[in-house]
């Protein structure tokens, strides 16, 4: 990447970090349900950018899309690692978090984390990051129809699981 490989390398790197790390952190947090994992994911995203083997090609996708792609892969990798070692799976509540379930936001977070990965990532990108569906399609390397379909299914599932919350809220 020209900007990062050229003069003022560190400054350019930090500028990119400042511009994108907030959204990447939120995205990773909502995919993994863990702030610690989200930190690691963000770090990996930016270090990937400066690795000699960096696969970012400006002509193929905007930097933001590419970074979200790395964040997604890293987040899923961490989720699978967690599952394979039998640790707390995403969305599985510990006794501590069970107590927090009384909080509406925790309930919503839990419901989102219970979604299948493919639906969850589309929902998070579309709803929370306000990413256009076409960009999500490019990021996930699927067609636009598949994005819409996953989003619809995710929303339907959430409507069902959160119906009780709605009545509580009222």
């Amino acid at each position: 990447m020209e900007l990062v490989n050229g003069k003022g390398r560190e400054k350019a790197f930090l500028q990119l970090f400042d511009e994108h790390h907030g959204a990447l952190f939120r995205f990773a947090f909502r995919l993994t349900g863990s702030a610690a994992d989200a930190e690691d994911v963000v770090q990996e995203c930016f270090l990937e950018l400066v690795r000699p083997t960096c696969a970012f090609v400006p002509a193929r996708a905007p930097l933001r899309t590419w970074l979200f792609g790395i964040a997604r892969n890293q987040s899923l990798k961490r989720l699978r690692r967690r599952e394979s070692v039998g640790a707390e799976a995403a969305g599985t509540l510990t006794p501590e978090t069970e107590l927090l379930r009384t909080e509406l936001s925790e309930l919503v977070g839990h419901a989102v984390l219970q979604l299948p990965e493919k639906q969850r990532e589309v929902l998070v990108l579309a709803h929370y990051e306000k990413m256009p569906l076409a960009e999500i399609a490019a990021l996930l390397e699927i067609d636009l129809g598949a994005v819409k379909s996953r989003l619809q299914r995710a929303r339907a599932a959430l409507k069902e699981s959160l119906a009780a919350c709605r009545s509580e809220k009222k």
Partner: protein
Amino acid sequence: MNDTDLDELLDTWTAPAPPPLLRNRVRREFQDRNPRPNRKRWVVVTLVAAAVLFALIGSAVSQTPSPVPAPWTADSEFVSYGPDGSSVIEMNATSYAYAGIEVLLGRSDPRNPLATAFYRVADAAVPAVGRAMQRALGTPSKGPRPDDVRAFGYVTGCGDHSLTGCLQLEHYYFLKRPDTCIGGSVAGTQTILNHPTIGVLVQMGDSMRSTFWVAPDLGCFALRIGTEKRQPDGAFHLVEEKRVVRISTTAR
């Protein structure tokens, strides 16, 4: 539940802000994995520049005649005194008198080898650059001639007879009368290193004064210079001293 209700519910789940330390962590990782090429480049550029500078200095210095046009040289200590009477030798120097001027041959810092190295480079570089500039600009020499013996106490950084382009620091300077070593009021006499000296007191403002113990048989060279500072009670206290510890005869 309609779409608006769902959106409202989803919005209640907020993500925490990324910790502020994350930036430093990523930056550190970046620096660890990417040693700064700029720093390397600067090191190389600096080394090359230093090599060129030293080469130029070496060339200039080697062209400079450095005979000692005096039958002797003096080794001196520059001492500073604390309020409790403690003393520290801050510099050693070797010099000689020429045309009423003290010409510095070399100096060192007994406490700091790096400072000594710096002195050597600076003492060689500054006069060399001065001479080079004079040659380039065609500036006529303004160095004092042997018969223009009016002052002493300059410290210079070269051994050039004409003193052209020398580093001249008005380190401890005072004018003396052309026919005598005395340039102030006489404070006394004493013998230092077997040379009779006259103490000449020079007042520098209200709070400082120096006494130059000059040796007439050494061309009015000062074998001891003590600088005193007035204390709150009005008394003067010795704060700095240059003292010659050895006179060596030069081979001529």
